[in-house]
């Protein structure tokens, strides 16, 4: 019995030793993997397919392989705070500024913008089509849907789109997730999944234009109902994670930021799928500012 105990202790010791050696071996290598860049981004950007077009060009030019992790903006920002991503591409200006102030990211640069729109059932049971105030439109949606004729599908996943939706509800003093009313569906998934739910359930939802356009063939029951409110502008920024987080590939992160802002890449962003949809999905915004864009009412420069 004793012998067996000693044997198992030895095996345990060997195991610890090998883990320790492994750690030591890794520690002598450079502090981060220079060939790899982890990009945490929003599902809406990823689902649009834009990154699938841009990233291979960057990989070709630099030899750095980019791992695109598509999560909600909330999760992407958290990955930056924890040092589990090298660079973030997100669309929640207020939360992003908090990260910049806290020193979690080294900079925040506007890359592109488009707009959100409220889409809803083709027969528009809440009769909000054409309203210019998005928050009032949401209040009307709630008023009608309370009667059981429609629903609203919320992302409910702490994403940039979800944050935007909540800020619109807040503008009319409604906090739907606390009301626990049947018309408010918290999907808890990405934009395309939420649009699919809205399409199936005849529900209204807030979506970014890029994802909506790229999926619209599969959303026969939905149509845009409210657009053009300047609060519906959707700003995408790139945020290299601060090198102080440890093991961050800051060099490649800066290179990727500069790549996105480069003139030819900005032109690709502008032209992405324009022919297919007859209008741009994204408007390039290097050197532009949110206030200037809002002042122009979202019109291109």
């Amino acid at each position, binding site marked *: 019995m004793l012998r067996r105990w000693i044997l198992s202790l030895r095996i345990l010791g060997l195991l610890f030793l090998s883990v320790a050696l492994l750690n030591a071996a890794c520690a002598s290598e450079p502090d981060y993997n220079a060939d790899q860049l982890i990009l945490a981004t929003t599902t809406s950007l990823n689902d649009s397919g834009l990154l699938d077009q841009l990233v291979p060009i960057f990989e070709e030019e630099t030899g750095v392989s980019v791992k695109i992790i598509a999560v909600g903006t909330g999760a992407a920002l958290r990955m930056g705070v924890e*040092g589990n991503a090298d660079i973030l591409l997100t669309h929640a200006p207020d939360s992003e500024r908090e990260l910049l102030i806290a020193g979690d990211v080294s900079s925040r640069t506007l890359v592109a913008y488009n707009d959100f729109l409220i889409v809803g059932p083709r027969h528009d049971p809440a009769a909000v089509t054409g309203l210019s105030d998005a928050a009032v439109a949401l209040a009307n949606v709630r008023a009608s849907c309370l009667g059981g004729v429609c629903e609203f599908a919320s992302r409910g996943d702490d994403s940039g789109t979800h944050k935007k939706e909540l800020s619109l509800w807040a503008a009319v003093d409604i906090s739907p997730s606390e009301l626990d009313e049947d018309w408010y569906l918290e999907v808890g998934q990405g934009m395309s*999944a939420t649009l699919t739910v809205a399409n199936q359930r005849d529900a209204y939802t807030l979506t970014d234009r890029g994802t909506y356009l790229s999926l619209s063939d*599969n959303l026969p029951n939905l149509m845009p109902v409210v657009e053009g409110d300047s609060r519906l502008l959707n700003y995408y920024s790139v945020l290299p994670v601060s090198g102080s987080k440890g093991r961050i590939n800051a060099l490649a992160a800066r290179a990727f930021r500069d790549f996105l802002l480069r003139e030819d890449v900005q032109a690709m962003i502008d032209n992405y799928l324009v022919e297919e949809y007859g209008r741009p999905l994204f408007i390039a915004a290097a050197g532009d500012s949110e206030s200037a864009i809002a002042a122009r009412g979202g019109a291109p420069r």
Partner: protein
Amino acid sequence: MDLIWDGIREAARLWWAGDREIIEITLRTLAISSSATALALLIGIPLGAVLALRRFWGRGLIVAAVNTGMGMPPVVIGLLVALILWRTGPLGRLDLIYTPTAMVVAQLLLSLPLVVGFSLASIQSVNPRLIGQIWAMGANRWQVLWLLVRETRLGLLAAVMAGFGAAISEVGASMQVGGNLAGETRVLTTATVLETGRGNFEVAIALSLVLVVLAFLVNLALTTVQQRRFVR
């Protein structure tokens, strides 16, 4: 109803055309899940044998843990493996997060309890007198294990099927530790989730059919081996 037929037609078309991406994803799925299953067998069968044949302090706890593990939700395993492998995690230096290796580890942890549990049950059902006889004939412990494996292959093949089934069918853990990266860690289940989310239901149906057919073929092969001696 149209959608379902469209899906089946699309599946046939994608296969007929030898769609490169689908074939790659299929092969990757097979490689990852069969590696995980193979490792689970390598570790799980001896472990099951020890649990079946030896009595020691804490054995009951381990068996209870194994039984719990048999129903472990993949997302829990995924979260656990992700926490460990994230850059800032204890093994972050290995740079394994978002790699096929990380997926093998997660699927191994999922199928291991199934393999241990099934091995334990089938080896325990062997007549103890037979085992006593084998020992008495002077066999060493590995020879005993080998004979037991031969004796209980019916149950052990069930362990293989259960382990492989758990590995290939899970999506939560693969999503979290693999990241569903195109060309790197995208497997049939994560691709199905992606295409469903994108509203490409035809492709999602096509991927699901591939997964089901694949699982069926593997199980058919295993069942054939399992039943060969018994059905004449």
